[in-house]
């Protein structure tokens, strides 16, 4: 797990962006790549975490946080590269690409477990990106790679849209780039 633009002493309730996945299973890396892509585009204080660990680790990560925006790969819900947004409907969401380990929990299971243990954020928004290639190997498939900019844009908007000042700051940084 590598942490990004969080500064020491930042309030715990600052928004948190988590990219989840496995870099060595092609499209399963889309969450990780999306998190890297938004790292420099978010308002100060927003934490970005690239999370390659086992999903029970998410409970400590998001427990007590304010808004959490999580990006992960999904399968079987539409065309490759399609972006799905989940919020209240997340509990019914099946986020499981072909299983690479049955020893760990899925993100959905971590969410359910977090609810039972009182370890949830105030609000969770999940962007699920439809993957097509989950075999061992590095690199996103062309349709998923082509959607990465749109995923990053959706994450930035999600984090900033409820805070107009932050949105302007984020937009300014984009135009300077």
């Amino acid at each position, binding site marked *: *797990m590598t942490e990004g633009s969080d500064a020491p002493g930042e309030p715990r309730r600052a928004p948190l962006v988590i990219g989840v996945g496995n870099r060595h299973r092609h499209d399963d890396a889309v969450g990780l790549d999306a998190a890297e892509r938004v790292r420099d585009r978010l308002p100060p204080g927003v934490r970005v975490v690239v999370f*390659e*660990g*086992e999903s029970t680790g998410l409970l400590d990560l998001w427990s007590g946080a304010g808004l959490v925006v999580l990006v992960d790969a999904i399968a079987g819900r539409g065309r490759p590269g399609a972006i799905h947004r989940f919020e209240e409907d997340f509990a019914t969401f099946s986020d499981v690409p072909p299983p690479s*380990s*049955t020893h760990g929990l899925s993100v959905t*299971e971590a969410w359910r*477990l977090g609810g*039972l*243990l009182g370890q949830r954020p105030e609000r969770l928004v999940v962007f699920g990106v439809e993957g097509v290639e989950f075999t061992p190997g590095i690199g996103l498939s062309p349709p998923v790679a082509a959607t990465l900019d749109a995923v990053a844009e959706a994450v930035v908007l999600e984090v900033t849209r409820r805070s107009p000042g932050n949105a302007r700051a984020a937009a300014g940084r984009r135009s300077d780039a």
Partner: protein
Amino acid sequence: MTERTIAVNYLARVEGEGALRVRIRDRTVEEVELRIFEPPRFFEAFLRGRAYAEAPDVTARICGICPVAYQMSACHAMERALGIRVDGTLRDLRRLLYCGEWIESHALHIYLLHAPDFLGYPDAIQLARDHPEAVRRGLALKKAGNSIMRVLGGREIHPINVRVGGFYRCPGPEELADLRGSVEHALSLAEETVRFVAGFDFPAVEEDYEFVALRHPEEYPFNEGRIESSAGLSIDAEEYESAFEEFQVAHSNALQSVRKGGGSYLVGPMARYALNGDRLTPRARGVAREVGLENVVRNPFRSVIVRAVEVVFACEEALRIIDRYRMPERPWVDAPAVDRPVHGAAATEAPRGLLYHRYELDAGGAIRTARIVAPTSQNQKRIEDDLRHLVARSLDLDEPALTAACEHAIRNHDPCISCATHFLSLDLVRE
């Protein structure tokens, strides 16, 4: 004539993909097959032609739960081939890394995979509904193990800081000191865990196991020792292939293992504890005694208590190493250039049991052959034996109850199918 088939087509709460098929004809158990259908993974072939230094990182990829075991067995085998020895603080750090893996792996198995069997829940999430404190305890333990892995290994899964001869980087004293609080807390949680699991209901079963584990003159074994068995075997790892043989069965993509000229045997916590109980720390022995754990456990369902006692030990051992840590001058021992064909074999104790590696190197230091025998591979036949006995004494159970009992019996041994295929669904046929 009646035939009954029990089929579990996909075993849950085990690592990897497998199934179970049991066929019963006229109240006789005719067939028990632990079917490992996870595809073969060809790691031994991938290693051919690679530089010897690559083996720890390549083999770590065999398992996301016990990568340290693969790194350790690979390093020790290579170091024996190269004629170097890692001692002192670097050796301590290897044991500390292994402590992290045992704590993390055992806590995961005890609380998230095995406890639901004993308490009558389909999974850990349902368990958390009624026993949130227990699941929190398990997750806190797991986190302490993960922290050790992260500090010493560079990351929690597939650590990247291990190399032949030692480590790429040694942690500063302050980095290990920062771990102390969480490991000390984990030690008290581990003792609570022993008491918690000792309160489960255990069927009155005894199996006649031949236990196989490392035995060290002074230590509860992680990295070193002779391979010993409860039947009197005592050999160096170099002699492993003279005492054990692997063979293919049609129903499994993983090779099975037996003692040459003998039958199945068991590796793992029960074996380690039976052969090394006297090497545990007084505190670990004390809590084992407090809950009435016998010196040799032959009831496979009670393996969960042994696993918990091993977590107590691993926490204590971690604290001992942290407290006496002085950063070494160099993070690794240099190896001489390879200028002739050499070979080396080693076995270390993965959380699930003995893990054997053997390598032959050519005159340029490239791997000519690799042989890896994982704990689950070695335990497969013994698990089938456990199941045969369980089904024979449980013939009057209905299908769901018998299926659940079989799955529970498999999880007694925390099988790691991904390692073994380098497994579960139950298929029960009653004829």
